[in-house]
């Protein structure tokens, strides 16, 4: 994305929101794991369950987002045929 922002800015803008969501999910998932590892108290089990749930039911969305970030652009150039038909 860093390369693309410099060399093909229009493509970068096309997938900027997908990138931003991917960033949030990745950082958020890491944070829950960090919290689970750090908690030695009575809420430890709760934090492990939350990190596991995030890993199973939310983190996998990042695969799809990553694909959007990498590929978005080709279809965008043809969008006018829909919006200005």
């Amino acid at each position: 994305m860093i390369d693309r922002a410099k060399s093909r800015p229009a493509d970068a803008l096309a997938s900027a929101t997908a990138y931003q969501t991917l960033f949030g999910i990745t950082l958020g998932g890491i944070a829950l794991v960090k919290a689970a590892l750090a908690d030695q108290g009575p809420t430890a089990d709760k934090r492990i369950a939350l990190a596991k749930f995030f890993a199973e039911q939310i983190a996998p969305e990042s695969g799809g987002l990553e694909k959007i970030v990498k590929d978005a652009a080709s279809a965008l150039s043809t969008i006018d045929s829909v919006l200005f038909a």
Partner: protein
Amino acid sequence: MSFTAPFADITFLAKLFGLDQLETEGLAPELADGLAEAILEEAGKFATDRIAPLNRIGDTIGARFDNGHVTTAPGWIETYRDWAQGGWNGLTASVDHGGQGLPHLLHLACSDMWTSASMAFMLGPMLTSGAIDALAAHGSDELKRIYLAKLVSGEWMGTMNLTEPQAGSDVGALKTRAERTGDGTYRITGQKIYITYGEHDMTENIIHLVLARLPDAPQGSRGISLFLVPKFLVNKDGSLGARNDVRCAGLESKLGIHGSPTCTMIYGDESGAIGYLIGEENRGLNAMFTMMNAARLGVGLQGVAIGERAYQLALSYAKERKQGRALNTKSEGSSAIIEHADIRRMLMLMRAKTDAARAICYMTAAAIDRAHREKDAQKKKQAEERAALLTPVAKSWSTDIGIEVASLGIQIHGGMGFIEASGAAQHLRDARIAAIYEGTNGIQAIDLVTRKITLSDQAFS
């Protein structure tokens, strides 16, 4: 519809994602002896006991407009007064200006609970703290002497005036005019729209921070200056003087945050509102950015805070509502819906996303604190870049999930969620604006990919 501030959980996450490290590295020695825990517990009590009960009446009655005056919902003035008298408004402001000089992260964690209690109520203080930051960083000594202490104490509130009918995301398109008067002051003329807490009855004076353009200013965003425009002019001795030439022309009728007045402001109907320059001429956006970055994180936190409140409400409903029989249930008769796999999934989505967004917001605040407090120039720059990188993510992702979590909260309630009496609907209506104001989430994404990720690799570490 009751809400209990989760101060133990918030304390854990605030310490883990920044406060402990700031303390052990000697960057926040004031936190020794459990000060953070004590403050968070007290803040949580105020949220639960005093602010949370205002949320509903703020929604149903809301702020009212009559002939230039705005009346806030019943009970709001008294609770605000007690909150300000508790010293809560000045947590992060410098000790020199009557504040307590505590870390931004600690303030954010307190705001998390107050905002869950009532997002509309906390918008005024949020904008006031932005005004304090901008004034402290860029204001002249004279302006600071007259205005800062009263803003820090909460006796006066601040506002942020960027938006005009033709200038929203594109701030550079604004047209409000500022003319030099020759005595060092300026006359401001123009119309601002959507100004949060632009007029109200909660404080005796309102300090507007207004972006405007000088007659000889360059086109676009390089020709914008920032002015302080008080509702009432202030005499040399600090007492209130004449009414300034600024008025509220009306309130918007809107989807949510009904308790927060969203005002059309008219500057200079008569001879021009008297304004005082903050920072340098034509460098106003620079000064406003101080305010906007903090406000962006504050808006991100609104997503977290609404998520928390929506989760608590949905959880308690799911334990009470009985319907069908869950697989493998041992109990007689119909099951509480919390036993159904799909309800459990939704509750976990709500909890996990809210906690993840909370962690991201806290990390961002920790980077801001480090940027302020680090002595080593290299480390300071690294922290500044990290804060800059994380701010758009904290703003956008947290507000996106805030909306999603509030929507899930409605889904868990079934038909009842669509009925206003359940309270679940208000959370979605309130959460919706957070993805729009302070730079839409689409604008945040542009900022992230075109400016932030290219900053430096150090920001990622």
